[in-house]
């Protein structure tokens, strides 16, 4: 196992360089010089030329990239073009926020989808409800669900605050009430997709001999479902979680925007829109890192769940 992990980690650096170079080239070639964005509507040709010189935007792409990667390898991700803040100072506070949102949503989705779908054996109503919710979850657009939740629970009923983010330190209750709707919005899609994957694998596992043996031993259907089918049917879900978390760290952009949550997704999209390249590149690194780590963890979890998998 150690060798496996080591080999995976060795790929990180070459992947990082390739990915960031491609990202860098893409934004500089397609989006062009950020000078006009940094100057706003007062951008005169003279001002643009000055900014190009000071920041080096008129240098060839590879040269600009080398400047960036040289600094990045020492941990210096530069300063935002828009706010002049250190990029690390902008990103670090957003990380725990997105992680928390993601963790809640995925955990909730995992528990409810596995629970409901395993419980559905012999309980027709639960099965129908669960199917219904999963279809809604997958097809309903994120922003619509979020807006509907806000309208119902904030505007009409007044139970929950409309948007925003309160840190734990400012009040646990406040923090939780602000968390409920964003987590539900995000959770819906994952409930749907986990359910579909799980149910498909469930049906396959259900055909296995050992399941019939368990039934013939007289075990209740529910016990068979949870004790014998679930641990085997959950494997593709684990893989899917690994992929999902990796991507989610790039931020649940739509949810974060609708609910005004200062997470990584909003930071990323905002940076792309305002040509804030240092932030875009740093975020690229973060997404790459998290995808690599999550895939690695998923593989390790799979291996521990299924001794037949050799790493």
């Amino acid at each position, binding site marked *: 196992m150690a060798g496996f992990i080591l080999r995976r980690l060795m790929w990180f650096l070459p992947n990082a360089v390739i990915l960031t170079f491609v990202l860098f080239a893409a934004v500089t070639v397609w989006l062009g010089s950020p000078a006009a964005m*940094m100057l706003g509507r007062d951008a005169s040709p003279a*001002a643009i030329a000055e900014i190009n010189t000071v920041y080096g935007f008129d240098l060839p792409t590879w040269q600009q990239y080398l400047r960036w990667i040289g600094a990045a390898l020492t941990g210096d991700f530069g300063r935002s073009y828009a706010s002049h803040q250190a990029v690390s100072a902008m990103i670090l506070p957003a990380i725990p926020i997105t992680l928390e949102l993601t963790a809640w949503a995925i955990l909730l989705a995992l528990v409810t989808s596995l629970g409901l779908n395993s419980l559905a054996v012999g309980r027709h109503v639960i099965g129908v409800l669960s199917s219904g919710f999963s279809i809604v979850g997958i097809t309903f657009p994120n922003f619509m669900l979020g807006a509907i939740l806000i309208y119902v629970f904030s505007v009409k009923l007044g139970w929950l605050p409309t948007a925003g983010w309160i840190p734990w330190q400012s009040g646990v209750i406040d923090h939780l009430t602000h968390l409920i709707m964003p987590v539900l919005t995000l959770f819906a899609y994952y409930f749907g997709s986990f359910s579909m994957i799980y149910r498909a694998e469930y049906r396959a596992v259900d055909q296995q001999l050992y399941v019939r043996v368990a039934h013939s031993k007289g075990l209740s259907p529910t016990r068979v479902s949870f004790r014998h089918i679930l641990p085997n049917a959950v494997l593709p879900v684990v893989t899917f979680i690994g992929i999902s978390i990796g991507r989610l760290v790039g931020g649940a952009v739509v949810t974060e925007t609708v609910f005004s949550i200062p997470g990584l997704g909003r930071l990323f999209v905002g940076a792309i829109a305002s040509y804030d390249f240092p932030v875009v590149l740093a975020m690229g690194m973060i997404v790459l890192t998290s995808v690599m780590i999550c895939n690695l963890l998923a593989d390790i979890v799979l291996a521990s769940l299924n001794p037949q998998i050799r790493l």
Partner: protein
Amino acid sequence: MNTLHRRDVLAGMGSIGLAGVSWPAMAQGTPTSGGTLTIGINDDTKTLDPTFSIQQAERQILHLLYNTLLTIDVDFSLKPELAKSWTVENDGKRYVFQLQDNVKFQDGTPFDAAAVKFNFERRLDEKIASPQRTQLAPIIDSVEVLSPLSFAINLKNPSPGLLAELADRVGFMISPTAAEKYGKDLGTNPVGTGAFKLKQWTQGTELTLERNPNYWESGKPYLDTIVFKANPNTAIGVQRLMVGEIDYIYGLQPDALRQLGDKPGIKTEKSKIGRWYTYEWQVDKPPFDNPKLRQAIAHAIDRDRLNQITMEGQATIANGPIPSGLWWSSPDNVVYPYDVEKAKKLLAEAGIAPGTEIPMWTTPTPVDRRLNQLVAEQLAAIGLKINIIPAAISDFYSRQVSRAINFSITNWTQRADPDGLLFILFHSKGFANVTGYNNPKVDELLASGRVTQDRERRKQIYAEIKDQIMRDLPYIPIFFAAEFAGYNSKLNGVVWMPDNHPRFRYAWKVK
């Protein structure tokens, strides 16, 4: 030889205490102290360092953290703020300012002429690369400290427009000690002389300001705390206002009036001068280099109908780039009333055959799209087929500048000095001149308006420019849009200035 123009001397309106800012407040009554004001804004706040600030949303916050040297009144006239008086010398090439006494920055350091000089040098420093530099460098020759409470600016050429800049971004005075201490991190650690200090800022979500107990205008400010909450869009903002989560939101379209109109505890206010909505086209090449075609289109557009449908009739029809209510406003001498028959006749004279196709570009913004569709209908009525091409909003302006987009609706906010907007749009070398407009007479007038000191004379010059522009039609003005603010009826003292930024500094709330 130095000449002191007496008529340009503005006496300070009292020394300590009231800062001669007598903005008309939104409601009468005696201000009560205390309370928290929560404002909804769209999330555009990137930096609180005026040196680099370009986002509109930041301006309202900057006016709370900092003071400016001068300030504007509701007709863009200039009034004292940190500079309590000033004189014009040397035929407009030298301004001498007297500063308010006993003003301290929020870090305790004194505000004085040396601090002012530091601020100007910061804006002009090439290494710092402030967006304001290229505008100031050709105008300012040097800044002199004359005494602790007075300084002078020497100009390369007379430039009355500079004074208006001192009421805006250039005029925000930053503490030199803080600038040196924080360097590039000043954007998140602002230190000014303003009525409020930064307490906490979660970027993209919430920003909290608290009262500055050592503020130099005695008795002010009234509020204890001001909180800015970011709204992802105005629909959510309006809902937040209705449930009481925020007290003030502006930038609302007229249809928000329907939602807020009869809600108890909520009032609405219309902006004094709205954004100038206008069609632009390239007049230096076909088809729009044909003056009769331009006039035909001008007569074919029913602007009242556009106003009714897109602005609920609340906008003011524009017959030029200058609205009424400003010190340089002038009568509308050249107008193009809605007249379909005349339009058809002009079109024929222009030699354009009915059924000719003309492309028009549009952004996805609902107001823009609706306007363009209505105009396309109206032009179809005179025989022109408009082909609407969608374009992304993010690079719309830069595509206009690079001339990739011809014929589109655009909008501009008024600047505090007439030269501000008119030069960049209508001078043949103006950097926002997307139309290719080149009229030597207008160029001459703009150049002279730029250096003339006398306000009455400047007013005449800009009136002439407006008339000529309306004769040449590089733009077709449509209206000055109606924008609304919705607010909690307990709120008083907020002034929505014609530069489209509300001023919250002297606001107060009824208990």
